[in-house]
């Protein structure tokens, strides 16, 4: 019985000490980490649509409305799209303009195969998204014909699909929620224009 308690208590002691230490470290790293994360996200948004201020809208899809800093006019929207790739989830941050045409995208988190899937983070890949409309977001391997489609990365079709399809799906959702939002009713004319264009 004594041994029982001894073992239990020693392990208890170690766990308590370790946890105390970790909790202590966590207590002052956590705010910093969160601050850094927020800043990074903000930086990324700024990179995608420069000179803007952002307003977060939460919902089915959380997105930010980007307004011009001076005119307060809506310049576009940014959002984070995610889909599983080859090695795990691929997170892409994208910015679209009012007509839901892509301004630019950035792959912010991925665990793809080095040398193949990881090429998705390179500008060579992400630049081709610029200016693409919703229905141009088809990967060439799926029947899309460039330049009106996304050219798949060599040996990493799955990663390409993950990025393209995630962005595509998110734009779909974005359109739905933007059109519902009363605040953006003013945009309805441009949405209508899009319908006409189709």
């Amino acid at each position, binding site marked *: 019985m004594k041994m029982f308690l001894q073992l239990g208590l020693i392990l208890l002691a170690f766990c308590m000490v370790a946890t105390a230490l970790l909790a202590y470290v966590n207590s002052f790293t956590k705010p910093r980490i969160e601050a850094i994360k927020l800043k990074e996200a903000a930086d990324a948004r700024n990179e995608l649509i420069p000179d803007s201020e952002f307003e977060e809208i939460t919902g089915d899809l959380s997105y930010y409305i980007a307004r011009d800093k001076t005119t307060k006019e809506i310049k576009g929207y940014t959002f984070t799209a995610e889909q599983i790739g080859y090695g795990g989830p691929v997170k892409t941050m994208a910015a679209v303009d009012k007509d839901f045409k892509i301004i630019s995208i950035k792959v912010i988190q991925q665990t793809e195969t*080095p040398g193949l899937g990881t090429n998705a983070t390179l500008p060579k890949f992400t630049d081709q998204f610029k200016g693409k409309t919703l229905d141009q977001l088809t990967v060439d391997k799926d029947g899309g014909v460039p330049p009106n489609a996304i050219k798949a990365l060599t040996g990493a079709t799955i990663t390409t699909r993950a990025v393209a399809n995630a962005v595509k799906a998110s734009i779909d959702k974005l359109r739905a929620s933007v059109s519902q939002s009363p605040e953006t009713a003013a945009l309805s004319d441009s949405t209508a224009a899009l319908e006409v264009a189709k």
Partner: protein
Amino acid sequence: MSFIKELTKGIIKENPIFVIVLGMCPTLATSTSVENALGMGMAATFVLVCSNIFISLIKNITPDKIRIPVYVVVIASFVTIVDLSMAAFIPDLHKSLGLFIPLIVVNCIILGRAEAFANKNNVLNSIADGIGMGLGFTLALSVVATIREILGNGTWLNIKVLPETYDPMLITLLAPGAFITLGFLMALMNMLKEKK
């Protein structure tokens, strides 16, 4: 004197990867680029030294039956501390290494050294052992990473070393390439040993 001996043995004679064959998983997983390898090596060295110190301090008060749980608690704590601190204070480096840091917990080198060395030796020697083993680990990791990065990407530490016409041999960056590269390096070590 023994401090120096413990310090240097890990680099070649008892190299944790090539000779003792421990810590295969991080070796293979993080050797796709020299940058990753160096970061991983340094982080692992830090944890190794810390846990070696701590374990050699507590070696007399841990009962055998719960030795391993106590050690892993110690190691996991240090790893988490490293993880959190890096995220908070050096976010850029953490970003490029972030994924691999929790992996250090299961790097068998650390528990291996705790079991094989730190719980039998004094603090000073344990520090030396930790540093030596850590350096050996970093070194071996960098060697593997050098081969893989050059062949698979044409670069070394992100600097282009092979001409543009070189069509990178992607396999070296993939799992099979990792295994085969390390396999051949070990065969090379064996050959050198035989010659001696």
